[in-house]
């Protein structure tokens, strides 16, 4: 399918740039460093920061705001720290989430739920690391699933 660029929402990029954190999105020169550094892209080939920015720049409003992609960002800021053009990608993702909520692509509660998932994931990781017995040798076998079970137990007990 050919994308006719002048028929896309060519104002979209300006709108994103108006959002807090979106100011530098148009500076992207597509070097790909964000995607190369992204831990989410490492596990999900569909997730690709450079591609998301490109879609914004080309005016693909509906495709971007209705997709899962902005929500997959873990806000680790790795890409943001390395971007040679100071595109604040993590902040752009926040801007897109706000726009998605505002424009009715997702229910406002979804944002809260994602936040809860983030908090939970952080706590889980925290507990998992804490529950590792031996911190000094490399001999000890780390079984994330088992650690997760223990950690979940701890979390449940706390709540």
């Amino acid at each position: 399918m050919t994308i006719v660029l002048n028929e896309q929402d060519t104002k979209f990029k300006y709108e994103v740039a108006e959002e807090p954190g979106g100011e530098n999105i148009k500076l992207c020169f597509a070097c790909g460093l964000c995607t190369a550094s992204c831990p989410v892209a490492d596990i999900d080939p569909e997730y690709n920061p450079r591609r998301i920015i490109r879609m914004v720049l080309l005016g693909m409003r509906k495709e971007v705001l209705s997709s899962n992609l902005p929500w997959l960002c873990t806000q680790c800021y790795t890409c943001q720290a390395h971007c040679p053009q100071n595109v604040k990608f993590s902040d752009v993702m926040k801007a897109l989430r706000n726009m998605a909520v505002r424009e009715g692509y997702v229910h406002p509660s979804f944002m809260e739920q994602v936040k809860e998932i983030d908090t939970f994931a952080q706590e889980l990781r925290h507990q998992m690391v804490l529950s590792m017995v031996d911190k000094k040798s490399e001999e000890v076998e780390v079984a994330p699933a088992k650690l997760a079970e223990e950690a979940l137990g701890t979390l449940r007990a706390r709540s």
Partner: protein
Amino acid sequence: MELKDGPIGAVLVVGGGIGGIQAALDLAESGYYVYLVEKSPAIGGVMAQLDKTFPTLDCSMCILSPKLIECGRHPNIELLSCSELLEVEGEPGNFRARVLKHPRYVDLAKCTGCGECAEVCPIELPSEFEQSLAARKAIFRPFAQAYPNAFAIEKRERPPCGLTCPAGTNVQGYVALTAKGQYEEALSLIKEKLPIPGVLGRVCPAPCELKCNRTLLEEPIAIRAIKRFVVDTARDESPLPEIEEREEKIAIVGSGPAGLACAYHLRRQGYKVTIFEALPVAGGMLYVGIPEYRLPKDVLEKDIAGIKRLGVEIRTNTPIGTKPTIDDLFQQGYKAVFAAVGAHRSQPLGVPGEDADGVIHGVDFLREISLGKEVKAKGKVAIIGGGDVAIDSARSALRLGAEEVTILYRRTRVEMPAREEEVEAAETEGVKIEYLVAPAEILTEKAKVTGVRCTRMELGEPDASGRRRPIPIPGSEFDLKIDTVVPAVGQAPDVSFLEGSGIRVTQRGTLEVDPVTLETSREGVFAGGDCQTGPWIAIEAVAAGAKAAESIIRYLNHQDLREGRVIEEREPSSVSFVPFGRTKEPRAKMPTIPIEERGSGFKEVELGFSEAVTVKEASRCLACGICSECMQCVAACKANAIDHSMQEETVELRVGAVILSSGFDEFDPTPLNNYGYRKYPNVVTSIEFERMLSASGPFQGELVRCSDRQPPRRVAWIQCVGSRDESLHRGYCSSVCCTYAIKEAIIAGEHVPFELERAIFFMDIRTQGKDFDKFYERGKEQGIDFVRAKVYEVQERDGTGNLLLKYVAEDDKPNTREFDLVVLSVGLQPSPECIALAKRLGIQLNKYGFCHTSEFSPVETSRAGIYVCGAFSGPKDIPETVMQASGAAGAASALLAPARDTLVKKKEYVPEKDVSGEEPRIGVFICQCGINIGGYVAVPEVVEYAKSLPDVVYAGDNLYTCSQDTQEKIKEMIEEHNLNRVIVASCTPRTHEPLFQETIREAGLNKYLFEMANIRDQCSWVHMHEPEKATEKAKDLVKMAVAKARLKEALKPLSIPVNHSALVIGGGIAGMTSALNLADQGFEVHLIERSAGLGGTANRIHYTIDKGDVRTFVSNLAKSVNEHPRIRVYTNAWIVDAYGYVGNFTTEIMRYRGRVIEKIEHGVTIIATGAEEYKPQEYLYGRDPRVLTQLELEDEIARSNPDVVDCANLVMIQCAGSRNGERPYCSRVCCNQAIKNALKLKELKPDMNIYVLYRDMRTYGFYEEHYEKARQMGVIFLLYEPEDKPEVSQIRRDGQYLLRVKGKDPVLGEEVAIDADILALAVPIVPPEEARELAMLYKVPLNADSFFLEAHVKLRPVDFATEGVFVCGLAHAPKAIGESIAQAKAAASRATTVLAKETITAEGIVASVDENICSGCGICEALCPYGAITVDEKEKVAKVNEALCKGCGTCCGACPSGAAQQRGFTADQIISMVTAAVEV
């Protein structure tokens, strides 16, 4: 000579890189005196470090080196190396520049560059030139071909160790020598200051160690232990120093460290010294105060023996005081007295029972033991006190068999004055220490000690000593059962000997002296050491002895005792840091004898270091002062060139203009953690890689990795490291990295015998320079993998040294790829020094710290009269730097034209002798080159041999034939022996021939009567392991030179008069700028323009990307040209014929369609014929009115055509008709042109959709900012690949023809299309048809794309091989307006080097044709690269135009009949050499 009220005919050039060199040469050749200020010891800059240059792959050093010599030897260029420009005051044309000259410590006039100093220098440092991949010495020459060919010493302030040592010992020096195993040299350095090194190697508390910068890392160097090893190991067989005997006698009272030191220093100055010692032994406290387990007596005795060996007399058992008195000494003829009696009187405890039997004071106790008296320390011993005497007494008591030894100290461990290590040793041996305990009474029974009544103490407020005062705790008394009490609570000098001497004593009971001079209250009597300071350390006493010696010498010589002396406050050294790259290494531990062996006897406890430990420990030294001043170089330099006492100085220079060519720094990628530079050894910077590739580099050109010295099989280049990166505040493009990476990849491939996997990770390949795109294509053909991706991370694969690169590939997927070696293509940045200089000069910088220039004045800074060239005004490559350098020189030359030739030096020579017809009388001068030749070749034998050769009337050898005194000697020998041929057998003619030629010319001989034999580079150096054969070869080489010299003849180079007017072809910006510059310099200019008006292509340009008003600029320029009295403009003029040569051209022009013919005579020709816009066939151009070229678009914008400025969707396609098979070059300006127009349209209508379809956005240098701005304004950039070009078609919809542009978005991987209202094509710049004709007329070449081809693409970018013809502007290659202007000024500057001369002297070594033999076949004519040969059609012989001939010899080699001969290298001469070489 300066003109009244006129400008000054001198220019100061800052920076000795290729830019500075070119500017200096142009100016010096144009009649100005030049000061070339270079901060390093040698000129050459970064170009000297490069391996090869792109795109021709010339050896960088090979093309640079002749320039270095030309510049360095130019009589009108004064090179100020190791210097910095401080400030410039005054007006353009009349500046006062202050220059700071740092000391080089090597006399340039004397240094011959032989390198023997560096051989002996013990200090190794990372070589900056080799990018720390190899070492250099503290005395160094940056690189082998450096100019000046002289060494320099790098020195910082004195290091903290040496500054701390009271005696000023050169600690770093002897530590460095020790690290190199030079123990004798180390000892002799120690003995410069220390007369008793053995003693101090054991007992010195080593204040130096406390200040050692190693403490910033871990622990100080074990300096004392190193000294001890040196003293114990070195065979001290050094001959006694030459002592110049003097009459004066001096008496020294006391043979302790102060007395010994004073005696030592006085004796070394020749004075007769007698030491009077009250005790039966010499050494004072060293003998009687320090127990033997710490200082064996034989060590002390050896030190004293060394002092006696100098001739110092020591009279023991001779107390001074009652008889003889001090007065007696003077009566006996002693001219001065130094009192150094020490502090041997013990202080009483002041408690009851102190007189009892069993109480013996510490100093007395130790003295008795030392003197071998029987001393008892039976039973329980209590030592009272906390100083060194207390500890020494306690440990001695143990050794004498005490049952138990307890130290009672009234404060705590923290306040204890004894040295920590001594206290620890005492405790280890079993000494008990009771803290916060003081004796109240010594308990006795029948006047014999039975115990000590003690009081417990607590600490109160600090007292005068700064330590907390002990306060008795009431009622805390307790008794200890003790048999022997040793009070050790202090000692004082015994001053009874002073009675009646008139010498005053202080309240503390010490001798009163002047603290600066150590004079006492009695004239002629000095005092120092413990008797003056109170009990203190030996090294201070040694220092006092030296100080007293200095005072006594001054006193005896009636000099001011105080002048230049102050009370030394040992200021901490400012050198307080750890050099980069030094890691932790623990301090060596001093081995000791086991505890069980210490119980009885006084065996030395510390064993000293082994040699291995010492060397390793000494190698820990950080060399804080860099040069250690060990003086080995001074001893090694046979030319006496080294002077460590040189001081920096500031000079004021009067100059008319200043040119800044201060270059750049490479970006340091260390802070980029993700690339692992300095963390992983196989991640290197591009400049390091240049050195790795270089045949003279750290790996001798073998391509190996740093980690394992194995050849890499896979190499990656990461582009834009420190460029195009706003997160690093370096948003600009460094312009040169893409091409140099391609060059490095190509060269790397040639360095290995296998197929090297090479990948370059880039964002846009920016090969916008002339012929660079072909170079890029060549890289692709060679299999270099170009990957469009920015690498995120480099990580080492454990243990392999291999590197994993993480990036997103073209398929948009995260990828990891393994390499063996990674090169970071680091960007260019201004150096902090340049920024500081610019600030001092008040020059405007841009936001990145580069020098600000404007488009229409590219070599002018913001301050009039100060010009800039090279990378200081922005990243650029060598040819652009050279163009700007010439351009800046041209601008300065125009400013100073009235002062031309006012300050230059013209050399007057004696008339040349006519030696033709004389029998050859040959002088042979054979060089030892220090030991470079003399060490391997038996030079005297070669001299004798030379004398035996035919026609040799003189042969002799010289230590350095190139030294100044030898030049005089050569002249004398020419005179004395009436020599008419001179041979020097030494090094290479490349560097030295001009010097010797100059010398014989000064003696009246024609310079071509000189011959050189290279017996160093080609003999002694390569055969150093076969000295006999080397000698034989040297003889052969001399024999060959003699054979040739016999046939040598004087040559008379042609002198050609110069016509001082110029012809400029082309009336565009370039031509007009050149013409104006030359006219401003006072030369007549003929400007030829084929159209009806001036302006050229610029007439079609309205504004520049920086919003410069091109129209106004061009019309002003044209107005200046038209109105200039010295410029004659010929419009509608066509050149029909041209002939002649440099200085004497004739050009015939036709005007008004053949109606007028004029003949113009001119000295130089500047070709500035410009270029045109290509008329595209592609993308419906000419078939759809909506398709425009960028220039047309600019026109439409300028006239506000609503169809353009109000349109909704505008598309631009880049590289429309270029970078393809037909026109395989980049037109350089089109990306900027597109962005310029896009920005203009966005300004007019911000919501216009603008799409730019591009292959590589080539917004090099600071243009990157505009690219960034265009993106920020919403311009969309769509990448396309050449095999997948955009398609443009007309689509009919709703009764309209849409102009549809189809492409692909590589990020989305989707087809995209735009319905364009306007389509603008970036079309190539093409040369005009007439270029070909002009090329033929002026005998200059064109490149494959029909642009004029310069003489050398790197170093002669505006010259042609044919002298006197120059090129600039678009005729040379596509370029921006600012670049054209710089090049136009450069062409004018280069032309000035001809026009400014009255005559031009051609080369003497030229071809000649024997017309009797020549058949006129014309082979030579076709081959001559300089157009210097023409076959006379009538006479049928070839004629050489000597004015054009460069003496390359091509014709001689090609001539089938042997008619063409090279003067100075005739067949006879060459054959005679060959015969000489092969005959037995």
